[in-house]
């Protein structure tokens, strides 16, 4: 497992107490389109803090009523699986076709199953 996320080129956040400089931190934005649906990744933006990230996300990602709820998380807090290891990581699922309903051959007269 690696700890970096989709954004590869970001500087790590400054040490506590360090004088702020450069880009505002990067945030990932998740939007719930309507009640009953999951929050889904919409994109990312820079903001000085969480409140600003939410307000900017509203302005950028929900101008046409695309959202009823917003989550933001600072990108550096997202842990991602690594692309190089995805082969071995997902391998255990590869040979278990019997987990799918289509694996089972049943007579056609069988209904509602």
């Amino acid at each position: 497992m690696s700890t970096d996320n989709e954004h590869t080129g970001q500087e790590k956040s400054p040490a506590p107490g360090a004088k702020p400089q450069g880009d505002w931190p990067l945030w990932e934005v998740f939007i719930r389109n309507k009640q009953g649906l999951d929050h889904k990744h919409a994109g990312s933006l820079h903001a000085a803090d969480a409140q600003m990230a939410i307000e900017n996300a509203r302005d950028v990602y929900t101008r046409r009523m695309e959202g009823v709820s917003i989550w933001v998380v600072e990108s550096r807090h997202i842990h991602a699986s690594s692309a190089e290891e995805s082969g071995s990581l997902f391998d255990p699922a590869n040979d278990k076709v019997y987990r799918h309903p289509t694996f089972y051959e049943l007579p056609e007269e069988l209904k509602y199953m």
Partner: protein
Amino acid sequence: MPRPEPEITFQDKVNREIRIEPKDWMPDQYRKTLIRQISQHAHSEIVGMLPEANWITRAPTLKRKATLIAKVQDEAGHGLYLYAAAETLGISRSEMIDQLLCGKAKYSSIFNYSTLSWADVGAIGWLVDGAAIMNQVPLCRASYGPYARAMIRICKEESFHQRQGFEILLTLSGGSNAQRAMCQDAINRWWWPSVMMFGPNDDASPHTAQSMKWKIKRFTNDELRQKFIDVCAEQVKILGMTLPDPHLVWNEQKKHYDFGQIDWAEFRLVLEGKGPCNRERLQARNKAHEEGAWVREAALAYAEKRRLADLQAAPLKV
């Protein structure tokens, strides 16, 4: 077990229409091409706000003013989607902004022309956004995932831009003689720069073949340009106006419109920074950036102050 060359694996994925994601291996040149193309595209969205923003205060009605503000705000959003996509390739936002502000980075040369009348706002929507859409729709299937996703979002929002532009021209075309003349004048001035937006002819475009192999581009410059001209040649009839090209004529054999020579000397001049508004646009961007510096600093200082206050309020919480 010997592993296949990464370039071969990469090209194989692209050929099978499997999208490339940020952490995947990719050729250096693919990364560089994308950074250049996506950041130029982002800069174009941002600089593109300037010629239209000039008309917000002078829009003829409240409805037109509200629409124009919404459109300019969309362009800012499009810039942001694209900057964020470029950042996934390892370049920082501030680096890209610096490249724009110092004049090193390019942006679409169309935005170096002046918006002289209200009809220009209509012509930009119809022709400039129309050409942009023609370019952008195939980019929704670009091989690089974050770019394609940004383009899907942009295309969804962009179609209102073109329709509102055409509606402005349609209204003017049904107006007084002066309004009709204004409409035709704007079309005359914006037509050829819009046709040039598709870039140099295919035989003068050295990167096209590689970009098509990598499936960043899906159509050549000339293919897209022809499609645009075919569409506009029909649409202009609805306006009762003409396109300023005496050689524009339907070719029954080719099933396409033939059109006149493009003035590439002018294109190169504007590209080199000698267009009507190159200096003005960059000055405006630099001014906005400098005048916003204190806001960016204050926001960071405020966030830091609140973080420290939270720490002091709950010193034992880990």
